[in-house]
């Protein structure tokens, strides 16, 4: 037994070593940095220990703006993208003709280059001296606009960011949900039909519970992914996100480290730990809620 235990640890050693060096150690280090006041990277020295970093970050208007932006982004995009993906997947699995074609179309954004996607969104939303963009063209048909989506009012920019985020995460969710729907045994549907079940009830009482583990997985990873949003905002509004008022928490961390106003690893660490706490809390709430509503077979 003792011998076996040693052997097991030996087998685990490479993984533990790499995870320890590249994951656990930095995590602990970030945690320590977040309490070291005025840490200087070059001299590896600090002035004292305390909660000042947290105090500073929590009172920084840029950080508060970033938290607000991130929460709005999460609360809008996660339910919407999951819901839309579910609708599209249900649609895909109930059509017979052209299913493969539609599946390919819906999956295309997943394999498309980010720069190409950015270009598409420019054409859609960017105002230039020559054109107001496709979105404004459509708005003008209804007698509205033009709205400057990229450089204009806050809600216009937030709309574009949410739209972009949903559009980016949709293909993966559709892919996962389509396969989850396909794995539901046809016999359950047959049984429900013979029992005279209306279609909506089949969906809510049978389909949804049976794919609930997958749905839950998508919601959890969706929350985590959205909380870590950064590159999408950069793709739309450029690197100076604070100026655009569209910064996210991860963006704030990055700016504190490397941005033009950067060089404050202590503040960055504190912000990162706050983000970590938020994500952890939300995930725990998710897990608690799921216990009631998710059915594992």
């Amino acid at each position: 037994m003792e011998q076996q235990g040693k052997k097991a640890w030996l087998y685990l050693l490479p993984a533990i070593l790499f995870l320890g060096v590249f994951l656990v150690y930095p995590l602990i280090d970030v945690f320590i940095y977040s309490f070291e006041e005025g840490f200087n990277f070059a001299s590896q020295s600090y002035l004292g220990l305390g909660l000042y970093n947290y105090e500073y970050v929590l009172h920084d208007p840029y950080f508060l703006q970033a938290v607000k932006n991130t929460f709005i982004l999460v609360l809008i995009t996660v339910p919407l993208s999951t819901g839309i993906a579910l609708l599209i997947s249900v649609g895909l699995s109930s059509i017979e003709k052209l299913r493969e074609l539609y599946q390919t179309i819906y999956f295309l954004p997943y394999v498309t280059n980010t720069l190409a996607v950015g270009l598409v969104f420019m054409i859609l939303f960017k105002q230039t001296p020559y054109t107001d963009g496709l979105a404004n063209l459509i708005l003008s048909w209804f007698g509205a606009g033009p709205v400057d989506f990229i450089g204009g009012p806050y809600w216009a920019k937030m709309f574009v960011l949410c739209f972009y985020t949903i559009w980016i995460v949709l293909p993966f969710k559709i892919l996962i949900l389509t396969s989850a729907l396909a794995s539901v045994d046809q016999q359950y549907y047959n049984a429900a039909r013979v029992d005279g079940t209306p279609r909506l009830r089949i969906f809510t009482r049978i389909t949804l519970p049976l794919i609930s583990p997958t749905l839950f997985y998508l919601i959890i990873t969706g929350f985590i992914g959205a909380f870590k949003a950064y590159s999408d905002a950069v793709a739309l509004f450029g690197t100076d996100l604070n100026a655009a008022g569209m910064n996210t928490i991860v963006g704030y961390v990055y700016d504190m480290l490397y941005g033009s106003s950067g060089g404050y690893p202590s503040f960055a660490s504190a912000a990162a730990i706050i983000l970590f706490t938020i994500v952890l809390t939300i995930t725990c709430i998710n897990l608690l809620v799921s216990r009631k509503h998710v059915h594992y077979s």
Partner: protein
Amino acid sequence: MKVTLDHLTKVFPSRNRKTGKDVIAVNDFCFEIPDGKLVGLLGPSGCGKSTALNLLCGLLKPTEGRILFGDEDVTSLPAENRGVGMVFQNYALYPHLTVRQNILFPLENLKGKDKLSKEEMERRALEAADLVQIRELMDRKPNELSGGQQQRVAIARALVKTPRLLLLDEPLSNLDARLRLQTREEIRRIQKETCVTTVFVTHDQEEAMSISDVIVVMKDGVLQQIGRPQEVYDQPVNLFVAKFLGTPPINVFRAKVKDGWLTIGQQPVLALEEGIEGDVMAAIRPEGFILDENGPLTCRLTEVEVMGRDITVVSNHPDCENVEIRSIISSDETVDLSSGSVQFALKSHKVFLFHPETGARIPFRVKA
């Protein structure tokens, strides 16, 4: 309620575009299922019996023909509105619902004037649970039940809405041998108690014979014979039916009728009245053999299996299609294994003659 199938046909279009041969799963079915009876739909796998069942419950639409429930034409009525109960082969219990919720599920679908109060639903669910004796399992999930218990739940769920017609798809195939015997009696009892017209599908002839009021034998989508089990066993219309029913299976010999004698090999075994001449297939039930030292049929003896109540004599004959001839003899008789051969006389009413090509039954009379 009686059920009438009127020229019912189901054709599945071919998947293979090159050969393009459509599959006729059910071919021109015409028969009537009498009210309140237990009907066994019997045939080898792939003979279209499950398709027939799906046509009855409405999950499939017939290519041609009509289905009548009583006098009502239900051919174009979707499964949701037919009011049939169905027990699926793997039971299809909803895994995320408890037994109680599973049984309540069909009742909760009722709408309009059929809508039931909570108490009435609960009462009916308990009644159905009592009928199949699962009251103590009501709060379990399906994966916490044994195969036999799951089946009972499936039957309760099918019966709870008092269906006009109960359909069972291979109800015993997922159970072990012992449970199978018990469950088939149970199905018989439940059917008797509820008097609901019931159709069940099986490939096991023993199962069908033992509990059905009527059996329907199918092959390749074509109805072969319909009748009471004993009737079909005693009077098979063709070689397929004769071979399909009975364990051990019927023994089939390549034989001839010559000068008024049924001849197997060179041995004249049975004197027939005039009218038949030429090659025939002679099929003899295992219980149709009599041990007789002067009997006309000589077979090479290979083994004797003593089963207590009776003896199975295993022998072979060059003109027999079966690898071994199994004959069942009363255990009062003794067989000498060392002699290497055995002589049989035949019970003429256990002997059937069939046309060697078409397999159709050739009626005959024995000369007194």
